[in-house]
Every structure is written in structure tokens, then in C-alpha cells.
């Protein structure tokens, strides 16, 4: 018998299965099509603002997305490199052939993992506890825990123009009954929608009319454990082009043919605010003369170019006209038309912070089924579901990351506390502690957790601890080392156009000056540490004021998080709470006062009344 069954082989499913298997739990991954393991049905990149930091966090916790991306990408760059350290983030152009292949290789190497091709249509449930899955043909497979990572495949409909077809991406079969069955077990099911643009044949594009967008000139990796596996000069470029007045005219004239603008009148799915279709952009931003479009290669192994920014549900003949109105694409051949997809998801306030559902015990869900969008968002949930399912089997407390510890913590807390309006995407603006949740310190934030739960090995943790010690040493060194202003040093200051200090200052005092960098200091005095350590210390010292402020805020929150709300609380017995707040509290069932405060519709007065009630009913441990 399997300990864990993972249903779905997308980014969430792969991380979940991997985490369970490396923790030596006998795991079965069931997917509709083994060839589509870790598929990237939409855009071909991994990372991006906030998401890139999540990939680092996944790596810090022993997940695989970062490593696989490092081994296979077409190009990589650091976003916002000119901005502050809190918003820098990696983005790689993935390879849609190499990435899944490498992922499958990785999964196949795990002795505790089996992979099976099948469709799951129901769960085995006894008295509110999941006992396994039931396949399309009625076969029952038992397990102690089931993790659902079904992506967009629950009752998926592909929408193009006025046609609606029941199928998933790549014309695959969707699961028709699983979401109905989930509803039967008591889940609230919602319908969401997302879209994807056209794929074009590279050979038919005139790139001379577009702008080149190369990868960075510096070696970069997501993973803390890998050396770069690519050559800077062999990176594949992307290209930039723009819509024209002609494009806008075609769209306006054909608007009623778009599925989303009336061609289909039974659309229930809510689309993501941050991914508007090109129809939306032209209608809502009518005064904009042009919209940016990126031409992104999908793979080294075939010629498809992804037309980022041109997502649409127009019928094919209109899409042809639209594409041909774009500079460089006058003769472009459309290999695959853009489409919208509608699918079922479960409303995420039905989850605990461990990603185990409140409705059925031993059932975990992760990824798009929880209402998120994006490969990275899916992968990190898969990892957490895998980790927490394993911990549950081991009889241990789940790993709940705090909002001040990881973007992963922000994402899960947002989902389970606030619910969603449209498919959820991570943004830096969602993280109130983004200065603490940086790209550069994901390992320092999370590796110890990984080591404790067993997804990070001895070698990895030794490396981290050494790094940590060196940071402290360098910080001490900067504090104690005073820089005497010799004539030679004065010369260097002047040459770099930097004001010469009047007295001899410590390195710490110097680095705090905005115009002084570690590179500059290294010209003046030998700083015997690696670039990585210098970077950490530079950030820590330069932004000390802001970082300390953030820690102080975080501590306040942690204090409130220590005020637990018992799981068995009956909100109907709490007198005087406003009715909207009562309803929200009953729905979300927050586990701490901190979480309760974040629920919209729950006001400070309600929190007051709730804490009085808790004190009264549950005594001093409130």
C-alpha cells in the first residue's frame, strides 16, 4: 500500500511527490500523461518578480524547481538589478522540452516514487477521512494520504471564439467528475478562467523589425547548490514588438466574436486581473497607442515562439489578422491559436495552513486547484503539501511558514485567510515584509527548516552554517576596522568622485553612506570574504534602519500569532460579534488572533469581543 498518492503531474504534483519520496514515504504519482509531467502549457518562463524569490525558497527547502530550471533554461536574468535588494528577482526562460524531460529523469531516480498514467475521478472516503483514490475504470488505490494537484484539469473547457470544448491544454482529457465528487463531499467549488496567446513559427518571423532582449551578462543560478550549467554567450534571446493602430482596429471591429465579449454567453469563470486579454487591454486602455509584446522562444528543440501579451479568445480567422498586423509578424505562421480555459477550483478558505483540507482529513490540495495561477505558486504549494503530508505520517507538527519568513507563507496565508476573487498571483506588493523576504537570503531564512524536516542534507546545512558564521565575522570586521585616510586612499576617493571622510571612520560607517559600495571599499582595503558574504553584509548594514523596522513589525505580528484560537470554537456562542464578522470567522476559522485580524470584514471591535470571549471560555492561555 502507498503512503501517499499525488494526483496530477504538474509543477505542484512534481514537488509534492519529490518531497514525499525523498523523505522515504512510498509515493504514487498519478498523471493523465507521463509525457506531460511538469508541462508548461502557458508562458515559457520560470521566476519573475516575487516568483523568482519563491523558486529560491523552494530550493532552500529542498524542492527541485530551481535546480531543474538551472539545468535547462534558455536564458536567465536578474530583474530590478538597479533597484533595492528587496525587489530583485531571477527570471529564466524555460525550455518546454528539456524542463519536463529533466524533471521526469529526476523523479524516476527516486526509489520511493512510482508514476502511473491514469485519470482519477473520485476519492475513497470513510467518515470524513480520505483512504485513497478511485480511477476512471473504477479501480481503487488505497493510501494514507492523498494530495490533489489537478491544475486546470477539473472540468476544463477550452474557449476559442464562439466554441466551447471540454478538454484541457494540449487537447488532453479533463477530469469530468472529480470536482462534482468533491462538491458532494462538501467542498465549495468555484470556476476560474485564464488565457494563453498564440504560438508562432520562428522561421516565419522577421526579427529585424523587433528589439533584441538578451539574457544577463553575469552567471546566475536559482539553486544554492548548483554551479551555472550554461554559457552566457549561448543564451537564447527574446524579442520585443508592439501592437499597431491596425491591430487595435481589427480587435475593436471584431469584439463581438471574442468568447469573452459576447460570443459565448455562459462564461462563469473569473479571469485574473493581472492577465487581461489583448481585447481587454484595447477596450480598457483605449487611449494607449500601442501595447508591448514579447516574442519568447519555447525550446531549443522546436521552433515555437510564444507571443507574450497577446492572450485572446478571438476566433482563428480574426487571430490571423491580428497577428499579421504586428511589426515583424506580417507573414508569421500561427502554429497554435490563443485560447481561454475555464476550470473548477476549490475555494481556498477551506484549507488549513498545512494545505490539508478542513472538509476531508488526510486530503491535501496544492496549485491551481486552490485558485492560484503560475508555475512557481503551484510548485511551492506542492512542496509544502508534500512536506506536511510527510510530517503528518510521521506524527509531527506541520511546517507553517510565517508571512515574515517566506513568500510561500504570504501566499498560503492569503489563500486560506482572504480567499480569492480571481486566480491568485504572487506580487511583491502582497508581502508586507518584503525587505526580509529577499532573493539573496532565502537560504538563511529557510534551510534550517529544511534540515529539521529532512529535505536538506548534512552537506547543504554545513555550507549554510559556514555562510552564516562568515557573515557575522565580516560584520564584526567592518565594525572594528577603521580606515585611515592615507594619501593613496584619498586619491582613490577623489578618483571615484566620493567625498573624502574628514576623520578615519570604521568600514561599517563608510558602507552606510549611499554612494559607497563593497567594491569601492575593496579598492581601499582588503576584505577577505567572498562576494556572496560581502553582498549580505552590505545589505544588512546599508539598510539596517529599514530592516530593523521590518523585524520590529514582524515581532508584533508573531506576538499576535501566539494568541491561538481553539479549533473547536463555536462562533455562534460569541455574543455581540457583528454578523458579517461572525460569518467570515465561521468560514475561515482562523487559528490565531493574527490571522483573524487579516480577515476582511472582521473589525477591531470584533477582535476585542473575541478575545474577551476566549479569555472567558478558555482561560489564561489566550
Amino acid at each position, binding site marked *: 500500500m502507498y503512503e501517499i498518492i499525488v494526483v496530477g503531474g504538474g509543477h505542484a504534483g512534481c514537488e509534492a511527490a519529490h518531497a514525499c519520496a525523498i523523505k522515504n514515504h512510498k509515493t504514487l504519482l498519478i498523471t493523465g500523461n507521463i509525457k506531460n509531467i511538469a508541462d508548461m502549457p502557458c508562458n515559457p518562463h520560470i521566476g519573475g518578480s516575487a516568483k523568482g524569490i519563491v523558486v529560491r525558497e523552494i530550493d532552500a527547502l529542498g524542492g527541485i524547481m530551481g535546480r531543474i530550471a538551472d539545468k535547462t533554461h534558455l536564458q536567465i536574468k536578474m530583474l530590478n538589478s538597479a533597484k533595492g535588494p528587496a*525587489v530583485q528577482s531571477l527570471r529564466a526562460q524555460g525550455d518546454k522540452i528539456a524542463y519536463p524531460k529533466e524533471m521526469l529523469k529526476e523523479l524516476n531516480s527516486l526509489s520511493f516514487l512510482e508514476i502511473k498514467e491514469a485519470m482519477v475521478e473520485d476519492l475513497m472516503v470513510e467518515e470524513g477521512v480520505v483512504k485513497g483514490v478511485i480511477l476512471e475504470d473504477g479501480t481503487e488505490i488505497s493510501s494514507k494520504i492523498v494530495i490533489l494537484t489537478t491544475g486546470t484539469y477539473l472540468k476544463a473547457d477550452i474557449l476559442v471564439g464562439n466554441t466551447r470544448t471540454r478538454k484541457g491544454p494540449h487537447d488532453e482529457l479533463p477530469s469530468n467528475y472529480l470536482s462534482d465528487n468533491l462538491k458532494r463531499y462538501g467542498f465549495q467549488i468555484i470556476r476560474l478562467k485564464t488565457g494563453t496567446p498564440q504560438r508562432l513559427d520562428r522561421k516565419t518571423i522577421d526579427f529585424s523589425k523587433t528589439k533584441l532582449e538578451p539574457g544577463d551578462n553575469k552567471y546566475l543560478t536559482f539553486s544554492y547548490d548548483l554551479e551555472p550549467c550554461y554559457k552566457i554567450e549561448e543564451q537564447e534571446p527574446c524579442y*520585443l514588438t508592439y501592437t499597431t493602430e491596425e491591430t487595435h482596429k481589427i480587435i475593436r471591429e471584431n469584439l463581438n466574436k471574442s468568447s469573452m465579449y459576447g460570443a459565448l454567453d455562459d462564461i462563469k469563470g473569473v479571469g485574473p*486581473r493581472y492577465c487581461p486579454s489583448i481585447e481587454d487591454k484595447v477596450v480598457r486602455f483605449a487611449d494607449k497607442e500601442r501595447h508591448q509584446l514579447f516574442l519568447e522562444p519555447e525550446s531549443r528543440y522546436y521552433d515555437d515562439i510564444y507571443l507574450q501579451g497577446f492572450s485572446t479568445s478571438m476566433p482563428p480567422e480574426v487571430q490571423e489578422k491580428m497577428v499579421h498586423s504586428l511589426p515583424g509578424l506580417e507573414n508569421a505562421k500561427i502554429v497554435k491559436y490563443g485560447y481561454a480555459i475555464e476550470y473548477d477550483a476549490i475555494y481556498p478558505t477551506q484549507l488549513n495552513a498545512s494545505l490539508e483540507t478542513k472538509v476531508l482529513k488526510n486530503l491535501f490540495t496544492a496549485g491551481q486547484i486552490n485558485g492560484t495561477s503560475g508555475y512557481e505558486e503551484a510548485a511551492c504549494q506542492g512542496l509544502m503539501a508534500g512536506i506536511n503530508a510527510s510530517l503528518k505520517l510521521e506524527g509531527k507538527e506541520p511546517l507553517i511558514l510565517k508571512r515574515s519568513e517566506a513568500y510561500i507563507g504570504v501566499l498560503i496565508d492569503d489563500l486560506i485567510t482572504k480567499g480569492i476573487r480571481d486566480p491568485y498571483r504572487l506580487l511583491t506588493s502582497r508581502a508586507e515584509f518584503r525587505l526580509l523576504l529577499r532573493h539573496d537570503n532565502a537560504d538563511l531564512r529557510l534551510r534550517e527548516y529544511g534540515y529539521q524536516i529532512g529535505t536538506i542534507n548534512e552537506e547543504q546545512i554545513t555550507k549554510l552554517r559556514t555562510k552564516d558564521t562568515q557573515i557575522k565575522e565580516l560584520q564584526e570586521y567592518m565594525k572594528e576596522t577603521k580606515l585611515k585616510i592615507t594619501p593613496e586612499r584619498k586619491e582613490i576617493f577623489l578618483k571615484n568622485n566620493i567625498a573624502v571622510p574628514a576623520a578615519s571612520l570604521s568600514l561599517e560607517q563608510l558602507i552606510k553612506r549611499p554612494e559607497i559600495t563593497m567594491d569601492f571599499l575593496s579598492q581601499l582595503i582588503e576584505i577577505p570574504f567572498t562576494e556572496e558574504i560581502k553582498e549580505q553584509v552590505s545589505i544588512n548594514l546599508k539598510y539596517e534602519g529599514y530592516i530593523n523596522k521590518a523585524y520590529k513589525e514582524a515581532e508584533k505580528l508573531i506576538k499576535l500569532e501566539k494568541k491561538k484560537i481553539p479549533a473547536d470554537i463555536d462562533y455562534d456562542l460569541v*455574543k455581540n460579534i457583528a454578523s458579517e464578522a461572525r460569518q467570515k470567522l465561521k468560514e475561515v476559522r482562523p487559528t490565531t488572533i493574527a490571522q483573524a485580524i487579516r480577515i476582511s470584514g472582521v473589525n477591531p471591535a470584533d477582535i476585542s469581543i473575541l478575545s474577551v470571549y476566549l479569555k*472567558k471560555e478558555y482561560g489564561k492561555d489566550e
Partner: protein
Amino acid sequence: MFDTICAIATSRGNGAISIIRVSGEESVKIVNHIFKGKNLEKADSHTIHYGHLIDKKQKEIDEVLVSIMLAPRTYTKENIVEINTHGGLAPTNKVLELLLENGCRLAEPGEFTKRAFLNGRIDLTEAEGVMDKINAITEKQNELATNQMNGKVSDLINTLRDEMIQIIANINVNMDYPEYDDVDIITNDIMIPKIKKVKESIQKILKESKNGRIIKEGITTSIIGRPNVGKSSLLNALLEEEKAIVTDIAGTTRDIVEGHININGIPLNIIDTAGIRSTEDVIEAMGVEKSLAMMNQADLILFVLNNNEEITKEIEKLLQSLGNKNYIIILNKIDLPSKVDLNHIKIEQDRLVKMSIVNKEGIEELKQKIVDLFNMTEIEEKDPTYLSSARSISILENALTKIEEVEESIQNNLPIDMIEMDIKVIWEELGKINGSTYEEELLDEMFSRFCLGK
């Protein structure tokens, strides 16, 4: 465990004294910070101390008695400080504002009792009564909160927050969508004028909020001038006009309020008029120093000159010290030959009213000047409740301090995404005045104003 809260414990009105109660871990520290007298942090529990409250400019606000009661033998089982001040709205409110500025939070209705319960001081029955009360009062407070500031000020705050969220959204779009070249990139240089504008708006709102307070409490007005220049005629003319009653009320300051006059709905409290009715020369009797002190206390100075009399050195000195105070110079007895050289004393024309009080000339003009001076036409009549506006004012003042920090960060060339965090805090602070959630508003702003996406 809890933050430090304060509230006026006595009933509001013109009692002889008011008690302001402060409860929480930091209560002694906070009160000590604004107290001139014995070091309260070293005081024994359950002792009373005499001293003065001072503001951040070290100016004495009031003469007070302070009771120190240390945890746990107190009503809330926390450190409690009770401040006995002179009664009347103005001194009491001033003390409350001072506490809010120094880190106290205004207590919610019933919060002292709630703490008493949470800390195990009172039993359940009492606490349940309190909960009913919390609920009832909160409803009312929510209602009040929405009207808490008059329309004009609330519009200003909304406009201000709107501008700020646009800046914030733009910076966020720059962070989250760095690859978009058609979105304006906000840099520190672009920020400087924007932040300056926000600062000026807050300063303006603060000024107007304070005017709102003036409506509630009255303008402390001082009539100054040599004997026989027409001070009492002026007072009587104003009083007669409004058919007000002259009474002695222990009021807004410890000085005697001679009378309340209502000018177009604005109450003037005439203070320190000991000299007005006597024939003694107030300025000579009190000396220039004392006259200056008297002028400093006033929100409005009506400075009366006799057109038929040369200006003395003392008067000239006082006139020069008016500076940026709210003053109006009344040139009385214009029906008599002029002996005053207006050019010599350099009076701004819009601060000058020529009158002949005995002939009732110029009274309307004076009233209009007062209205203009306090910008009263811009304030709607809706009465802000004092407590809410004290809170709003303290929020605005905090916001102003933070704006200054932002300016400093920009000066120091810190990355824009860090500066954004400060602006966000200010936006949230201001949001406490009318309440709304940051994230949803920000996302809406980002995705409705900027064209983004795959």
C-alpha cells in the same frame, strides 16, 4: 502585553477639574516624558505628585496633579497614571493630544474595563455588561467615524490618499513588471515634488482640522491696547451686536473669560481682559513682557490703536512682535484727526481695519476680517466630534513626521522600493481616519491604471 491607552475619565464639560487616565506598561514612562517635576519613573506606587505638563517645545501646558498607581494593584492591573488637570475642554483636550503624540492610543469605549477583565480584575457578569456596551458604543462610533471630520477635510484626505496610492501603485508596477517599458519609472527625483505636495496637503489639512477644533471650542481672543483706545467699546459693540451675555465662566484657560461672542457662528472667547474695563493702562501696568505672554496665549489678537494718539515705543515693540500670529489691528477713532504714521509702523493692509467704534463704523468689516483670517468660509458647519478629531489630528501629525523621514530617505538616496514602504505606512495611517484595506485598493489601482499582463 497591551499597548498604552488613554482617555478622559471625567464627564466632559466645564467642571473644575478633569481626570485623564492612562493605562498600560508604558504609562508612567509616557507621562513622565511630558511632565516637569519629580521623576515619575522613580515614584512609589500610589503616590500623588505636583508639577506641570510640557509640550515638545518645553512650553508649560497646565499645572497638574499626577497619581501614580503601579501594577498590579490598579483597576486594570496595569500601570495606571491619572492626571488631574484644570477643567474645561481646551486644557483637557490639549493634554489628551499630548499623550497621543507621545505614544498613547485613544482607548476604545469600555477598554479600561475590558482590560480589567482580561487581566483578571473583575468578574464575568461585569465583563458581559461591558461587552454589550462595547458593541453598542462601537456601532455609534462607526457611525461617528464616517462623519468625524467635516466634508472639506475628509475630501482633502481622500484626494491625498488617492494621489498617494497612485504613486504607490506606480512604484509597485515598476517592481512587479520591470520589463514594461511603457510604464513611467518613478525615481527619487520624480518623488521629491510629489512628496512635497503630500506634505503641504497634510499641513493644510492639519491647519483646517485645527480650525475645526476652534469652531468647537472657540477662538481665544485677546483685546490689547492702551487705555482709552476703545477696548471696552469694542467689546461692548461686539457683545451688543450679538446680544450675548457677559458672564464670568471658568473656562478654556485659567484666565477669566470675559465673554463669549459669536461672529457668523464662530465663537470668540475674550480672555485676560482685566485691563479692558479698568481705566488702568494695561500695557504699562503689566509691562511689555507680560503683554507678550498674554498675546502668546491667544488664538486671535485684536490690537486697538487710537488714530488720534501717537504710537509709543512700547506699542511699537508689541506690534513688531505680532509676527505670524493671527492678529487684526484696529485703528479706532478715525473720525478724529490722525496722528498715526501708518507707513512708519508698516502694517499689512489686509490686517488693518479702520473703525469708529462709537459711530458703529467698521464693525462688519472687522467681522469679515476675522472670518477670512481663520479661513472659516472653507469649513462646513458640520460639527466634528472632538474625540475623533483629536485622534485624526494625532494621525495627521504622525503622518507628517513620517513624511519628513521619507524626505530624508530620498535625500540619502535610498532605493525607491524602500521609500515606498514608508509611503505605504503613511497611506495606511491616513486610512485609519476613514478605514479601507490596503491590498485590494492597491491591486485595483495597479491593474486598472496600468496595462499589464501576459
